[in-house]
């Protein structure tokens, strides 16, 4: 039976996210990235979608994506296996397409059959799949087994790849970037010299104390008794604050699954501007930077570039009779005195609470 052409097109239309930014043309998207050179590389569709609204973060994400997909600590097949395990756990079509495109490019193979894996590869698949899906249920023994087969830097590389895939798939799933059907499929890693530097703070006089940040608070008043949108299901209600406090106390006495290197061991591998230099006693950083300094630094560059993308642009000149409104105040509508609410912003307290909610949802007490 021959299907009508419109029926063949329908699934593609249905997959497009109507709220997502439309992908820009390659040259236009490339030109928006900081420090981009005149000869554009082929950009993945997700980068063409985000280049306008978050150009610095997009550039940083391209770099992290490339470092992850070319990391020399693991064989190309193992890298693809890790990415595929994460994509399968997350039901991520684009994540799967990246893994399969790289697998084909590096090894010539068309796919990986998880049920036919054995030995170390099966261990890697099972661990990475579980870490992506239910990280809190991975076991000490799994990591011990991996460390018996692979070096510490290799195991750190695997975990950072799962971490990156878990982040990336959570962008892909709502964004729904189209898997490139032409030009050879998902573009190869984009390793380009883009400008990912942070602006240097203004020099201060010697002896100045560091500025104390203003206490964080929401710009919109809290405590008014809004309609409750919080969770009431047993999964959430099953743990009270005391249980969570106990979880954190227990985590303080926990023996880690991997050696935490000392600062003096990690420091020589760091760039002069590495973000770990700000927090030299953080175990997370010592392990990640100790095993994979370039990937770990690339991740923190993503976070910093995201922050810079979110800084407000210089405001236009304010008319003398304008309202001095906060974020929740309505925005003016030209030609009409009726005002509509303006969009809320992702302020510091929302960011902090979101992180807390995620750690609570996943029982991550670290």
């Amino acid at each position: 039976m021959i299907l009508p052409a419109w029926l063949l097109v329908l699934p593609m239309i249905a997959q497009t996210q109507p709220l997502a930014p439309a992908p820009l043309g390659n040259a236009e998207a490339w030109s928006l990235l900081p420090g981009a050179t005149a000869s554009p590389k082929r950009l993945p569709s997700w980068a063409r979608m985000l280049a306008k609204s978050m150009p610095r973060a997009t550039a940083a994400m391209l770099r992290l994506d490339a470092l992850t997909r070319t990391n020399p600590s693991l064989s190309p097949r193992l890298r693809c296996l890790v990415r595929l395990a994460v994509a399968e756990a997350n039901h991520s079509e684009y994540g799967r397409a990246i893994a399969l495109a790289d697998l084909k490019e590096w090894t010539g193979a068309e796919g990986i059959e998880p049920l036919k894996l054995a030995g170390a590869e099966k261990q890697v698949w099972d661990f990475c799949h579980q870490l992506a899906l239910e990280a809190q249920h991975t076991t000490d023994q799994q990591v011990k087994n991996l460390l018996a087969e692979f070096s510490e830097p290799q195991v750190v590389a695997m975990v950072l790849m799962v971490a990156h895939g878990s982040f990336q798939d959570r962008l892909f799933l709502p964004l729904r970037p189209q898997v490139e059907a032409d030009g050879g499929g998902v573009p190869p890693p984009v390793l380009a010299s883009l400008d990912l530097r942070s602006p240097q703070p203004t020099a201060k006089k010697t002896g100045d104390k560091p500025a104390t940040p203003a206490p964080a608070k929401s710009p919109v008043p809290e405590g008014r008794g809004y309609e409750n949108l919080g969770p009431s299901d047993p999964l959430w209600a099953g743990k009270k604050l005391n249980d969570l406090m106990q979880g954190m106390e227990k985590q303080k006495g926990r023996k880690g699954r991997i050696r935490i290197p000392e600062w003096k061991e990690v420091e020589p591998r760091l760039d002069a501007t590495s973000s770990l230099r700000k927090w030299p006693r953080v175990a997370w950083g010592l392990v990640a930077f100790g095993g994979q300094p370039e990937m770990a630094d690339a991740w923190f560059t993503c976070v910093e570039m995201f922050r810079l993308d979110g800084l407000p642009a210089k405001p236009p000149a304010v008319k003398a009779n304008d309202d001095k409104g906060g974020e929740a105040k309505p925005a003016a509508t030209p030609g009409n005195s009726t005002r509509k609410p303006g969009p809320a912003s992702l302020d510091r307290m929302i960011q902090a609470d979101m992180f807390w909610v995620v750690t609570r949802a996943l029982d991550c007490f670290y």
Partner: protein
Amino acid sequence: MGHCEMGLAVAGLKQEEIRGREGMLASGDWSSLPPHHQVALRFARKQALEPWKVSQADLDQLNRYFGPEGMWRVVWWSARCHFMTRVADAFQLPLEKDNVFQDEPASKAAP
């Protein structure tokens, strides 16, 4: 979660304020928070547990409160949390006993 507490302390919240905030979030009664704040938290939880089930309605809600560009910043930040938690959970890192984010930079503090 321990690092969330440390971050809030660095941001200027007192210990009792941090406990109060955690208690409110843990209780599931978020009615003291404005709707856009609650919508972002609800999205973060859903995306954490079953990211493939994030629906058009969830995104419509984000768009309603945060606008067409701001909504993707919420999605990005929520996704960002999963990089951090996967590393912490994979290695079950011991939580530092004091606030390591209040350290002096390494050039001054470390040998």
